[in-house]
């Protein structure tokens, strides 16, 4: 018989409602799995076993009382930049090694109220800056498919935990690909919602005009269900879109015949691994067999500039956001000299190499004499990228691309070459810059490692990409394929 930790969240929900097992039994199964594999994966910075069991007992009481929701009793990993009252939240940094938040983020409040169970705080690249989870002050997370390889990043702990059975679902955050790229490399499903769809209240800031929290799960249905659970309007975040949210589950199981799908040729570049190309070609054929009109004669020439635009805007915003870590109010505080000396010592000790590099890039792009040349120019090209997408969505229901140019790479391979690491996000950056929703889901293996298919939607149209993703997943027949760890 299969173990409870192998279930998808919706399968677990069915079992819980039918009283086939209890939420405590489900959580105990997941905690035993964490005990068994965590020393090889390192998906968590902080485990919250006791809290998880307490929440599981409350969940069982809700099933008994008839007040359960679709997330009640589901064991979650929560990315460690999502603040959780009373539970250490590090953002993967030494700077916040002892930080115990005095309040809850909106998203954690939402899943807690829904009766979810938190297994622990998931590992990540420091302040969400990275594509491999190697830039964590708490050691790298390993890919459950091959522990000599990276899980992607920055939400690598969240994606690896889902793939390894160390939770059933997870919350991550995506600034330039940080949900979709690790989801692709770990063979799970990840959704970066439309900017403004999910509240950023209580999310440790990286690039404020780009950051967005989203779900990672074992299949499309789970991701849709979680988005419904976390996506409500929040007046505490002034960028939370007040528009009404349609029910995502409504889009599942519907036919996709007649959907118009654009495949921008700029994504099929030199550097894409042949195994990835093969899986994407097969996926396009599969979408055609489902009745979609697939147009490969689409050109989005601004695509090539997205990387530069992103790596100027995100570090600029980061340099401003991370100025708050000064050793005065909270976080690491070196206190041996004058105020200025303390501030420099605190930041020298507290930040890792990649964070320092991005702050430097951002301060440079914003500094006198370079603002127009770099920051302002990037903001203008951002407009052109957005306009190009907007025009494409007058003709297409969705765009389909690979999520990454290659499969998971060996630990350490790109650590000394920052630009090579940045290239990992080349397919996930354009939609992020434009604030569009995008889904990554597994579309097969290359050399035994997962390949991700990306489906980009129009602003606010998570429904269509989940609908297409759900139909594709059903046709592929590979949902919930766990890593053989």
């Amino acid at each position, binding site marked *: 018989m299969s173990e409870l930790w192998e279930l998808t969240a919706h399968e677990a929900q069915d079992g819980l409602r039918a009283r086939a097992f209890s939420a405590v039994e489900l959580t105990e199964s997941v905690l035993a799995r964490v005990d068994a594999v965590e020393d090889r994966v390192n998906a968590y910075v902080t485990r919250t076993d006791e809290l998880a069991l307490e929440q599981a007992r409350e969940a069982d009481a809700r099933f008994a009382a008839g007040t359960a929701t679709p997330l009640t009793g589901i064991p979650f990993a929560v990315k460690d930049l999502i603040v959780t009252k009373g539970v250490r939240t590090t953002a993967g940094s030494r700077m916040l090694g*002892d*930080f*115990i938040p*005095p*309040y809850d983020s909106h998203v954690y409040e939402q899943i807690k109220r829904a009766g979810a169970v938190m297994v622990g705080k998931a590992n990540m690249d420091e302040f969400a800056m990275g594509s491999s989870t190697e830039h964590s002050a708490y050691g790298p997370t390993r890919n459950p498919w091959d522990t000599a390889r990276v899980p992607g990043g920055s939400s690598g702990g969240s994606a690896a935990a889902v793939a390894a059975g160390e939770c059933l679902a997870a919350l991550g955050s995506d600034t330039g690909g940080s949900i979709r790229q690790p989801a692709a490399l770990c063979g799970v499903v990840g959704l970066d919602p439309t*900017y*403004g769809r999910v509240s950023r209240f209580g999310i440790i800031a990286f690039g404020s*005009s780009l950051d967005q929290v989203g779900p990672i799960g074992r299949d499309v249905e789970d991701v849709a269900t979680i988005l419904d659970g976390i996506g409500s309007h929040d*007046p505490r975040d*002034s*960028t939370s*879109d007040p528009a009404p949210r349609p029910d995502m589950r409504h889009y599942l199981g519907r036919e996709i015949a007649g959907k118009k799908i654009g495949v921008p040729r700029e994504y099929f570049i030199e550097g894409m691994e042949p195994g990835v190309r093969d899986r994407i070609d097969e996926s396009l054929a599969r979408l055609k067999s489902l009745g979609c009109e697939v147009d490969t004669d689409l050109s989005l020439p*601004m695509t*090539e*500039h997205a*990387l*530069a*635009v992103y*790596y*100027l805007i995100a570090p600029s915003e980061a340099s401003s956001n991370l100025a708050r870590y000064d*050793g*005065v*109010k*909270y976080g690491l*505080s070196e*206190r041996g000299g*004058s*105020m*200025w000396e*303390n501030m*420099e*010592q605190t*930041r*020298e000790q507290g*930040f890792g190499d990649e964070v*320092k*590099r991005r*702050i*430097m*890039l951002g*301060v*440079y792009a914003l*500094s006198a004499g370079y603002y127009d*040349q*770099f920051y*302002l*120019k*990037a*903001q*203008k*090209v*951002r*407009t*052109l990228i*957005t306009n190009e997408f907007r025009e494409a969505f007058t003709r297409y229901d969705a765009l389909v691309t690979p999520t990454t140019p290659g499969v998971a790479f060996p630990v350490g391979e790109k650590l000394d070459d*920052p*630009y090579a690491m*940045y290239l990992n996000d080349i397919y996930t950056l354009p939609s992020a810059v*434009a*604030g569009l929703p995008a889904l990554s889901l597994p579309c097969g293996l290359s050399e035994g490692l997962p390949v991700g298919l990306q489906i980009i939607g129009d602003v606010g149209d998570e429904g269509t990409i989940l609908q297409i993703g759900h139909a594709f997943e059903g046709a592929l027949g590979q949902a919930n394929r766990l890593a053989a760890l």
Partner: protein
Amino acid sequence: MPISREQVLHIGRLARLGLSDAEIDRLTVQLSDILDHFDALAAVDTEGVEPTAHPLPLHNVMRSDSVAPSLKRDDALSNAPEVEDGLIRVRAVLE
């Protein structure tokens, strides 16, 4: 090199990162390499294009000026490195 060692030193001071000489050397090479790849941006025609600060068409989100519960002082100070009489104690700013 699009960026000089002196510029890196200057930015490092602005960012208060307390960088070592070795870090300055390494960052000069790495930032130059990264910025080299951004050259193509200069060639994009952005004449008359408005900059995007933000992807949402939301402006001036207002709320009513009403009293609501907020974080308790003790909670707000719970992570401060040094507290005195309910206040955060800081080093002297002026010598």
